[in-house]
């Protein structure tokens, strides 16, 4: 058994930021357990730029952004195990992991930070009819083939889903010589950033078809084509709008799911909407001493926010380790009227610091207000030019606001049109 103050599960941007913050706060023994061969997580394959504008004030590629944190980790005495898979987090915070050098490892931790990230929704979750040939894969898998393994997964490509990964891969495949025929989006709006629609699709003349989905795949061994169709308001394909498109590759960018198998096994309560743990403002889950941050907590669109959130978790874990984290009176937060969810789900009204509530909306709003209220009283109301499901928003809660609340209060975030 190896003894550590803090065990961080996952060495992507979230895990590294949490570990570094805890170290900075004076935690002595910190270890990061990473399943891939190197630190950096999914950023290693995100070779496009657009990372770090908020945090570093400059535009970096994924590996560069990760690289800055990897360097910092290397300059501390944080222990790192790569190629190491965590199998289980026990009730007493014993973390069991394996790798092919040390075999089975057990770490006794005072606090644990869960930072396992997320995974892509596969085809199965979509129930697309048709054959099941080679050439159908998630956009992220294709990204790894192209950017890490240096292989082209196809030449004539259709992309389903206009999330950022789908858009980025449309450009990437085009630059490497593939023909991207169309990007189909089920919803009447894109889930990706506007800038990515401009510089990944418009720049290359790739059409984006909204309210459109893939209804059938064709081809026995390798994909030979797909049938797309328009969908109605209930997102059901409209008969008669089917159109055949010849292609050898279908990339799916249809959503990310926080990877919480380990959390569930560890008895951590999950939020049914975020698919991530229920946490308080310190990013502590309902299991004392177990924290969560990054995409395992909620899917982010900007890594900068992951870093920010993970530093909060790192600080929280440090306070827990030093016994500084006192109890408190926790109340729930809730999103209604267009606000799908709010993270953190619990807030300590005895807290003395300003805090941010992050949320996502369920549809596009233009010129609407974001209203925060508690016990019928409006705490803040801000007009936003645009709110979109693809972009995470936040509202600020001040200590003054908290002072007005009691143990039965509930903080509500809603959209007012």
């Amino acid at each position: 058994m190896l003894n550590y103050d803090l065990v961080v599960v996952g060495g992507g941007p979230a895990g590294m930021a949490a570990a570094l913050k805890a170290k900075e706060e004076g935690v002595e023994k910190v270890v990061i357990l990473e399943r891939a061969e190197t630190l950096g997580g999914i950023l290693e394959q995100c070779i496009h730029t657009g990372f770090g504008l908020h945090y570093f004030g400059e535009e970096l590629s994924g590996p560069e952004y990760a690289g800055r944190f990897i360097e910092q980790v290397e300059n501390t005495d944080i222990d790192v195990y790569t190629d190491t898979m965590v199998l289980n987090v026990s009730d007493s915070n014993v973390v069991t992991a394996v790798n092919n050098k040390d075999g089975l490892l057990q770490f006794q931790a005072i606090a644990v930070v869960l930072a396992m990230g997320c995974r892509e929704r596969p085809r199965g979750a979509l129930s697309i009819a048709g054959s099941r040939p080679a050439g159908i894969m998630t956009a992220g898998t294709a990204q790894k083939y192209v950017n890490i393994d240096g292989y082209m997964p196809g030449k004539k490509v259709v992309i389903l889903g206009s999330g950022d990964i789908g858009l980025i891969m449309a450009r990437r495949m085009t630059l490497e010589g593939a023909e991207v025929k169309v990007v189909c989006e089920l919803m009447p709006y894109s889930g990706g950033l506007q800038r990515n629609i401009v510089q990944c699709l418009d720049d290359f003349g790739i059409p984006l078809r909204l309210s459109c989905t893939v209804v059938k795949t064709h081809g026995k061994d390798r994909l030979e084509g797909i049938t797309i169709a328009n969908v109605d308001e209930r997102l059901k394909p409209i008969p008669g709008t089917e159109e055949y498109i010849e292609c050898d590759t279908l990339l799916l960018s249809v959503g990310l799911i926080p990877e919480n198998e380990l959390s569930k096994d560890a008895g951590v309560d999950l939020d049914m909407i975020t698919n991530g743990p229920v946490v308080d403002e310190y990013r502590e889950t309902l299991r004392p001493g177990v924290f969560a941050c990054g995409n395992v907590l909620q899917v982010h669109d900007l890594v900068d926010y992951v870093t920010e959130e993970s530093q909060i978790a790192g600080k929280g874990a440090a306070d827990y380790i030093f016994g500084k984290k006192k109890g408190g009176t926790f109340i729930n937060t809730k999103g209604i009227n267009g606000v799908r969810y709010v993270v953190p789900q619990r807030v300590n009204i005895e807290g003395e610091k300003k805090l941010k509530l992050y949320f996502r909306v369920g549809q596009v709003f233009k010129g609407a207000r974001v209203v925060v209220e508690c016990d019928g009283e409006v705490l803040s109301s801000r007009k936003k030019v645009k709110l979109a499901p693809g972009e995470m928003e936040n509202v600020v809660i001040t200590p003054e606001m908290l002072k007005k609340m009691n143990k039965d209060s509930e903080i509500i975030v809603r959209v007012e049109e």
Partner: protein
Amino acid sequence: MIKNLICVACPLGCPIEVEVDGTQVVSVKGNTCKRGDEYARTEITNPVRSLTTSVKLEGGMHPVVPVKSSGAIPKDKMFQCMEAINSVTIKAPVKIGDVVVENILGLGVDIVATNCDSGK
């Protein structure tokens, strides 16, 4: 004439309205920062983009290593730059910031590595 753009300078994606007279930009509206103004002006006169791709690597942990252009390059030179980069093979080890192609196509922009690979 009014041209509507989406700013790509940062992830905010501000909608920008540019008033154009011939090839002259008369006014820029809708941007929320200075970079947006700059973007709008160059987008009308000489659209540029930064390029990210990978370059062939010999003796590395991986067969390719990611690279980016050190500055923006004209949009219509994208594929020419890709060709030039694809004809290059570099050798491990490579560090972040290593120049892979100097002054690509004479555009005054370098292609630099954005990840390290210490080799097999």
